[in-house]
């Protein structure tokens, strides 16, 4: 368990360190306005990363999430128009979730029925969705209902309500993953699908569920992306790799079966923090990409350190005579 907590501590330390350093040099960082916008900025990535963590837990990837989020923004520009209000907005909102469910099922179909590797399947979905978005909105147009965006971004003080919501959600999801039967089953399927099937689990259903959850989370992330841009932009979503990065930095294993939703949330927040901080120092945002890349490598190295250390020790240690118990 201690090892599973390393990503959480590391991410917390990085968030605090970067925040503290920035606060010392740029007083604007700790202003309520900036903190509020930082938290709101983080929402799309945090939400989609939680979904991505599901895909990684069952041993897959979903690179179509960014295109799906874009598709949701474009959809919103048709279904959540400024002219409608109140209860009339509900079907429009459901349309976005519907797009998510449909995409998730489509991905699951490619992966489970056609047996495509998830990365290939979702790459195909990505292209389809990207094309569809551009077909629907050739350029950014179609304003999105401000009632909706205001509701999404409302908060207490500088903290958006939705942010509190995802923090609670991530914590609950970790409890589910490590403290319940269903969570154990999900991890088992991610670690070893054949054995899980032999043990009588419905592995297919689990994997379909994971990819549908991933896509639904992406579509919810799409709401927050829509709230951010407020217009039907066909080229807005770019969270595919960042969401995988967040899940990995948060402790997810690329081989499946291991991960933490709360760690993912912290990592997604940290990645957003880097993006937020660089302009304050008048640094080009390209540095963000490089930093993130370096961090992922560093994190993977660090998370695997128990094995590395054990290996190093066994190479050096004086081997004790014999520790074989009787058979």
């Amino acid at each position, binding site marked *: 368990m201690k090892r599973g907590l390393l990503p959480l501590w590391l991410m917390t330390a990085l968030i605090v360190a970067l925040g503290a350093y920035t606060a010392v040099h740029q007083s604007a960082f700790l202003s309520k306005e900036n903190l509020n916008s930082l938290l709101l900025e983080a929402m799309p990535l945090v939400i989609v990363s939680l979904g991505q963590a599901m895909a990684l837990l069952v041993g897959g990837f979903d690179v179509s999430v960014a295109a799906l989020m874009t598709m949701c923004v474009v959809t919103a520009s048709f279904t959540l128009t400024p002219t409608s209000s109140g209860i009339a907005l509900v079907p429009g909102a459901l349309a976005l979730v519907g797009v998510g469910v449909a995409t998730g099922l489509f991905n699951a179909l490619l992966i489970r029925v056609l047996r495509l590797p998830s990365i290939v399947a979702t790459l195909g979905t990505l292209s389809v969705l990207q094309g569809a978005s551009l077909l629907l909105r050739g350029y950014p147009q179609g304003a999105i209902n401000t009632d909706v965006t205001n509701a999404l971004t409302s908060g207490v003080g500088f903290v958006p309500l939705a942010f509190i919501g995802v923090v609670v959600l991530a914590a609950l999801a970790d409890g589910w993953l490590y403290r*319940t039967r269903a969570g154990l089953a999900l991890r*088992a399927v991610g670690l*070893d699908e054949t054995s899980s099937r032999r043990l*009588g689990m419905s592995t297919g259903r689990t994997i379909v569920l994971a990819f549908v959850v991933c896509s639904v989370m992406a579509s919810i992330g799409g709401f927050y992306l829509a709230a951010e841009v407020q217009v039907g932009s066909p080229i807005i979503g770019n969270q595919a790799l960042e969401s995988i990065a967040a899940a990995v930095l948060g402790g997810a294993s690329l081989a499946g079966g291991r991960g933490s939703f709360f760690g993912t949330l912290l990592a997604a927040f940290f990645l957003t923090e880097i993006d937020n901080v660089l302009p304050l120092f008048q640094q080009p945002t390209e540095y963000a990409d490089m930093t993130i890349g370096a961090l992922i490598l560093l994190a993977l190295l660090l998370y695997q350190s128990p094995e590395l250390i054990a290996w190093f020790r*066994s190479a050096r240690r004086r081997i004790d005579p*014999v520790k074989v118990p009787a058979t």
Partner: protein
Amino acid sequence: MTSDVLSVRGLSKAFGAVQALREVSVDCHAGEIHALVGENGSGKSTLLGIASGFLAPDEGTVEIGARRLLHHSPAAARRLGLGIAYQDYSHVLGLSVAENVYLAVPADARPAYGRMQSWAEETLAAFNLDIAVTAVTGSLSLAERQLLEVAKALLTRPQVLLLDEPTTALGPDAVERLHTLVLEQARAGVGIVYVSHRLPEVLAVADRVTVLRDGVGQGTFEAASVSEDALVALMIGRPLKVAFPERRVLPEQAEVMLAVSGLRGERFGPIDLVVRKGEILGIAGAEGNGQVPFLRALAGVERAIGNASCGGAKLDMRSPVGPLRAGVVLLSGDRRDEALFPVLSVRANATIQILRRLARVGIVLRGRERRAMAELVERLRVRMASTEQPVQSLSGGNQQKVSLVSSFLRGDVKVILAEEPTQGVDVGARFDIYEALRAKAEEGIAAVVKSSDPLELSGLCDRVVVMSRGRIVEEIPRHELGERRIVEAIVGSRPGVTAAVGEGEGAPA
């Protein structure tokens, strides 16, 4: 008439062009131990796979407890009362033992999630299994995994229990304990289908025997009324003449090829040992007494300290490269993961270590490649449709032959370290493998064979050492070799045998 707890009728199943099963029917009564024997590739595993719902048959029906299995899934078969211990296990290695045990029982029999640990402890204690439930399953020895697999199958409280090669990793006393358990279950009315390639072992407990050959049933017999020889003849379709190649007397002072002094690793040692040119040395012992780590250390796969030399030159065992360069080749018992590249062709596997020799300006010449391997493939009688066939589509015996071809082709082999060279290998192919090792020894190499089959060691080897608790406790010279002698050495070499089933290497702290 007793009731059938399992009844399969007219099962046929093809994998691509290979007809794995052809109209096979088998039934198992309540309280019966029904042995299913046959060579590798005879369809035993396919039959179990279908009976357990893991595979869907092309034709035929499965009835468990007189209820027909309609939906072909392991979960459905389990609900009808079928438990199965898979040959290659159903453990999720990344999870703890407790978590695996928890997942193995039907949902309604599981305790609250929080009680899992103590519940798993009690459960395993009921099976006399001394395994730490908090250990990661991947850290268990193969013997422990195998016993855990059987325990897991029993946890579903099945009416019919399928055991697929449940003793491959077990030493003699663990086998006996397993058999006690199996007999207990049979007395309690469970029908047991027992698949094994170890005939004497399975015949010791079976009531009836069904023989499969090339996917076709060869008949069902009362175990008491059929001889081992007759069964073997049915399995292979010809009477088995000699089981082992002839041994020549070694020259009195043959040159020392492999010398080990004071070698010790985490789970064995210190070990001193000498193997001479032309000699096949056997390593016996109950499973988990350091035999495998010792061989792996010699091959540079596991860490160890101490000295070893090959042909007089000191062996650099810090990595597998040193021993390989010196001509020390390990035939890993884990063919799929270590000895072979399962998806590559027979040709690619055979020549992968000598490509440099087969290439001109960096391009491998297919013709040379084929010529290089043709003779050996022929001599070892590798049975296959084509050399371009993926190795994973071959039977276990033929896979093992391919890994032998690959080692022999190197040309510079001085020492062969073979770990369970005939595990999962059918009777006919076994002899080919023994013969290949013997022929190679006569060419002047030294071989060390670790096997859990005393009969094999006594027939194949020039000398056998017995390991216990990581050390050599007895050496049996050629003129004393015999199955009984080895078994006695294994049993006798462990004072105060009170250990529970499967107390192997123990779980790491």
